[in-house]
């Protein structure tokens, strides 16, 4: 039996994989998305918590060792507080990166479901054009809603923030989709080129 190593690091048999993909097709994108969210979200949350914890440590701990210096080493590498701060921040960034990666992976099936809803499998160029159109739409709708929020006075301020944050999140999702589609397209072309070169060789 052949085995495939999944991106999550789990080991899955070819048959399991086949069954899983059949299930995904039968159950539709929603099931796929829920499954992905079930796995990815707790991981992302945990990584984020650890990242925050290390960030807090990077703020507090260096303060406890201020003044301690390592002899014969150049500034700022000789300062223990700086070294601790850099080390802890690096760990926080690594965990934060992992959290973002898991969140993006959880987004993948959602994006696929969205793309299917927006007209099935379309060519990469059309999908990118659609993403750009949606980006423009999001920006312009936000621009159109801002005067309404401003006219509300007091409650308008938080509403403006909500509009801004929602716009930003939607833009990030769409930019990610553009990047992913472009990357896949280029990857497929490169693979095609490699296969051709292999044939020639």
């Amino acid at each position, binding site marked *: 039996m052949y085995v495939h190593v999944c991106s999550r690091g789990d080991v899955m048999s070819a048959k399991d994989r086949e069954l899983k993909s059949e299930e995904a097709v039968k159950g539709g994108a929603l099931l796929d998305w829920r499954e992905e969210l079930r796995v990815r979200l707790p991981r992302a949350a945990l990584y984020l918590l650890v990242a925050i914890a290390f960030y807090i440590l990077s703020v507090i701990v260096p303060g406890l060792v201020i003044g301690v210096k390592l002899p014969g080493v150049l500034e700022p590498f000789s300062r223990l507080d700086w070294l601790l701060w850099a080390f802890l921040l690096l760990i926080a960034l690594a965990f934060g990166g992992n959290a973002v990666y898991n969140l993006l992976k959880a987004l993948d099936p959602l994006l696929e479901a969205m793309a299917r809803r*927006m*007209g099935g499998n379309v060519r990469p160029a*059309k999908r990118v*054009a*659609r993403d*750009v*159109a*949606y980006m*423009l*739409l999001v*920006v*312009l709708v936000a*621009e*159109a809603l801002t*005067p309404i929020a401003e006219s509300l006075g007091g409650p308008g301020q938080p509403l403006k923030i909500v509009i801004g944050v929602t716009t930003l999140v939607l833009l990030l999702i769409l930019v990610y989709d553009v990047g992913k589609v472009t990357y896949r397209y280029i990857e497929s072309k490169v693979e095609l080129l490699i296969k051709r070169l292999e044939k020639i060789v």
Partner: protein
Amino acid sequence: MAIEPVKYMLVYVLTLLLAVSEVFPLSVSAMLGALLMAWFGLNDGLFTYEEIFSFIDLRLIALLIGVMITVETVGRSGLFRVLGLYAVKLAGGSPAGLFVVLSVISAATSLFLSDAAAVLILSATALAISRELGYDPTPFVVASALMINLGGTGTLIGSVSNMIIGLNAGFDFVEFAAYLLPCELMLWWITIAVLYLYYRERLRDSPKLVEEYHVRVENKGEVIKAALILAIMIGLYVSSERLGVPAEAIALFTAVLALTTTRYDPVEVFERLDWDTVFFVASFLVLVRGLERTGILQALSQLIYEASKGSLAYATLLTLLVSGITSILLANVAVALTFVPPLKALNLPDKRPLWSALVLGTNLGGASIPVTSVVFAMAVGALRHEGLKVDMGELSKVGLLTSMAQLAFSALYLLAYFRLSF
């Protein structure tokens, strides 16, 4: 309040992107664009609420709807199908002869019928005949679609973009035809020659007999009535200037005449009208007129003027080239509506060559690639429905080749007809 032209430009780009990427149909994309334009324009004090409605050219909408009703009623009688079948019978059984006759009929039918309706009728006829005689249907169907796109380039009512440009240029039916019909007729033969050269290997089957082919006219009375209505419409358009009756009034008159003298259910006729185009034109007018208020289109006009260095010949060729290329990717109605304000604003004494170039550019670029052309896409659909494998790359090659040949000839025609010099 300061006006931000970038915002308005983005609304325009958004509308085009939504339409090109088929997120929404043409009409809905334009309606969304018009809505955003109206909202921003009102907020920025660019125009008033009442002015928004004045942006919609009611004369143009009346002309569109009038022609659509007349053509829909006439088409229902089966007149065009009967004419097509008779002509095919006349061509005999030679594939090359059939190819030429079908191409000419397609272009001639499109002079009066909407492109979509003409493709439906002609591709069905081409498929039925080629199936019957055992010929490869691809050259016939492709030629039919390309000739349908070309047909109507030379008449005011031949396409929606022609109506938009004609009304804005102030051309009547005769003046419009005088400038452009000779070019169209010459383009028919150039296009047929290019297509024949391309498909000549596939048109070398030995001729088959077509004697047993019978044309049966079921509702003779309706066909004759339809032919009469069509003749009256053309007669009125030709004498419109002498009568002092504008084109949209003739369109509405013939629409009422067609509805009252035929027995078709008017509700059915109204349902079959191309409302997508009507709403698209009305909404896009709001978008373009709004954009005009920001000064962007005047800047574009200035750009054309500067690029052409004040020379009418350069400006004409530039208009032909830019409108032709943009029509490959965008709906030609959108291109026509966008180019009208900058051409109107151009500071040149004689703008007839420019309007003619815009007509030719918007019409000829329209069927270059199957992905963006409705007539081409419908022809591909008909071939696929017949179970034939369609090579989109090859079709794009044929489309681009004919478009380039047509645009090149049009450039020479405009220079010669209007005696333009550099």
